[in-house]
């Protein structure tokens, strides 16, 4: 009953004309951003912060979420029609999607991807609706040690599990934490690392750093290659699918939805890993695994379902615990803090209109995306034909206005420019950027939780290990951090012995 009344509150918020307009704008812009190669959801979200900042918090987050899951749909268009994955979570779709297009089945590939995305997206929002309230209730019992442990888990997972090198991930995470230390000490008010600059006393803002690292960096990567890619044409008539297509895609969509949602909830995993796992699982189950990569329906349906299902999953730790598990949700957390909204268990009791309006808008957004991605694919393809020589400077200006619009500060713009250069160099050298932003967003709160915990325990660090919930979380953190050593000295010898 509670669920129904919560959802009815949510739909009454989501169905207001302005919020319907905003969700439509979000999903359209998200689809376009997802379709543009080189600009993923994190960059897209960072670039669009200025638009969100001019709105009320509910509309702003509805826009951000629309962009987030819209991006997942959009990546498919590029994968199928351009032979280039729009973003990393579309890599697996591209294997079979483009192969289907080469066989003259681009339309059905896009339709199956849209249906799979819709089913999975809706499934993940249903799970979010059902699971978020009890998790938020349970989290009300959490004290500073549990919060510190959770933040440490999010940070160590995203630093240690994303990217090709753990050392690079951890280095970026530590630098993000270092940046979070700039400004006044959150407890005693001691100025740290501000070197007498008034602008630095408030700390380094998340916005200029995120927009520089993701938005401006995407622009620089775009102009350093500047490749004009050919786009295949497709018409509405070609989008029709057969009964066999539906039969072939039904179970892969169901399995992809489940895997995607589970992976989405885990910190540090994200949409890309969800698609890899879903594709691998589908290939393993299939009676004809040799056909994967040659253009089969299951190879498109499963990863597309997985990447969309992961979005709803990723919203659970963000909304219920205030802990983002990926770069995209870290940016969303940053946006919430710009509005002075603290995500976490209290959000559900203090701001029900906001939370349930946001969740309800996700149901509406998924329906909109299904229609848009079947009926309006030719229109999205037309956008892809805008030359990068015009698009790149336009996005750069968007970044500038975005950062300026929050504090009206040119100093922030310089920070953005510096981090754009850093982000570009780091991207070229395969350093993951998400740990830095996540650490910057969480750093302040993490320090407060750490110091409050140690104050409560009179300096006894065992408090993190003796309390049941924080103890379990800390154990997981230790496993994540020590995994390479454990693998080398404990697991490999055992496996080797068993094989012998």
């Amino acid at each position, binding site marked *: 009953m509670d669920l129904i009344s919560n959802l009815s509150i949510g739909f009454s918020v989501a169905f207001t004309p302005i919020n319907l307009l905003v969700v439509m704008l979000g999903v359209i812009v998200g689809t376009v951003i997802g379709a543009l190669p080189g600009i993923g959801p994190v960059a897209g979200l960072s670039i669009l912060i*200025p638009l969100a900042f001019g709105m009320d918090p509910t509309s702003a987050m509805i826009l951000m979420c629309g962009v987030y899951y819209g991006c997942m749909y959009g990546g498919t268009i590029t994968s199928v029609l351009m032979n280039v994955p729009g973003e990393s979570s579309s890599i697996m779709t591209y294997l079979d999607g483009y192969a289907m297009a080469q066989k003259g089945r681009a339309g059905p590939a896009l339709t199956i991807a849209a249906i799979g995305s819709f089913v999975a997206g809706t499934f993940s929002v249903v799970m979010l609706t059902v699971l978020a309230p009890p998790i938020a209730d349970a989290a009300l019992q959490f004290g500073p040690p549990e919060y510190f442990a959770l933040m440490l888990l999010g940070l160590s997972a995203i630093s240690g599990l994303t990217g090709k090198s753990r050392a690079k991930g951890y280095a970026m995470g530590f630098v993000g934490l270092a940046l979070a230390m700039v400004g006044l000490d959150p407890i005693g008010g001691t100025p*740290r690392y501000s070197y007498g600059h008034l602008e630095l006393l408030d700390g380094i803002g998340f916005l200029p750093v995120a927009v520089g690292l993701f938005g*401006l960096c995407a622009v620089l990567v775009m102009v*350093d290659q500047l490749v004009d890619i050919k786009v295949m044409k497709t018409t509405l008539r070609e989008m029709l699918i057969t009964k066999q297509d539906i039969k072939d895609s039904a179970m892969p969509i169901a399995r992809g939805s489940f895997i995607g949602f589970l992976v989405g909830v885990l910190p540090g995993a994200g949409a890309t890993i969800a698609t890899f796992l879903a594709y691998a699982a589908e290939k393993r189950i299939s009676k004809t695994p040799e056909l994967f990569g040659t253009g089969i329906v299951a190879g498109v349906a499963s990863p597309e379902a997985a990447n969309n299902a992961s979005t709803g999953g990723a919203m659970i730790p963000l909304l219920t615990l205030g802990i983002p598990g990926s770069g995209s949700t870290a940016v969303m957390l940053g946006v919430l803090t710009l509005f002075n909204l603290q995500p976490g268990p209290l959000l559900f009791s203090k701001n029900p209109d906001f939370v349930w309006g946001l969740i309800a808008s996700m149901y509406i957004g998924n329906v909109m995306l299904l229609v848009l991605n079947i009926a309006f694919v030719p229109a999205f393809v037309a956008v892809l034909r805008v030359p990068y020589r015009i698009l790149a400077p336009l996005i*750069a200006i968007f970044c500038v*206005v975005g950062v300026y619009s929050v504090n009206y500060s040119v100093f922030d713009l310089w920070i953005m420019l510096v981090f754009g250069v850093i982000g570009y160099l780091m991207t070229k*050298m395969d350093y993951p950027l998400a740990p830095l932003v996540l650490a910057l967003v969480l750093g302040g709160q993490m320090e407060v939780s750490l110091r409050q915990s140690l104050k409560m325990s009179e300096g006894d660090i065992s408090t993190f290990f003796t309390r049941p919930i924080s103890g379990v979380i800390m154990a997981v953190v230790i496993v994540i951090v020590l995994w390479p050593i454990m693998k080398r000295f404990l697991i490999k010898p055992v496996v080797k012995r068993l094989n012998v």
Partner: protein
Amino acid sequence: MNKAETGAGSVFVAIGIWMLLDAINFPYLVDGVPGPGFLPLWIALGIIVSGVVLTAKGIWPRLAMPDAEGVVWPQAAGWWRVGLMLGAMAASLVVLEKLGFMVTTTLFMASVVFGLGFRSRWVLATVPLGSAVALYVIFAVWLRVPLPKGMLAFFG
């Protein structure tokens, strides 16, 4: 030895040492519980350790992942375009408040679009001005962001 990786690792070590030297000036403990210097000190040590590992991996590439690819830097033309974009942005930030958003954006767009290879006069005339006007309408008029007016301030 991978010079780029070694250099990046050394930069991390330098940042860590810099942070450490400042961190030791803040009180580590206050009344027996962590003070403002507690976390910065551990973060600085974390940066130094990560930096040392990265430097070692750069000096002895065998320590890095076996399938790790080398850094793919852009060609000369790519560097030029990146430099153009950054230079134009830096110049725009310098003049933004003096010239105002409309003029700065128009000049920025025109110089970058031209620099990136567009020679069509029609494009060079319409795209920069059109973009500036469109962005001004969205942000200054619709979202009420007080963008700098600069030399056009007399329009009110």
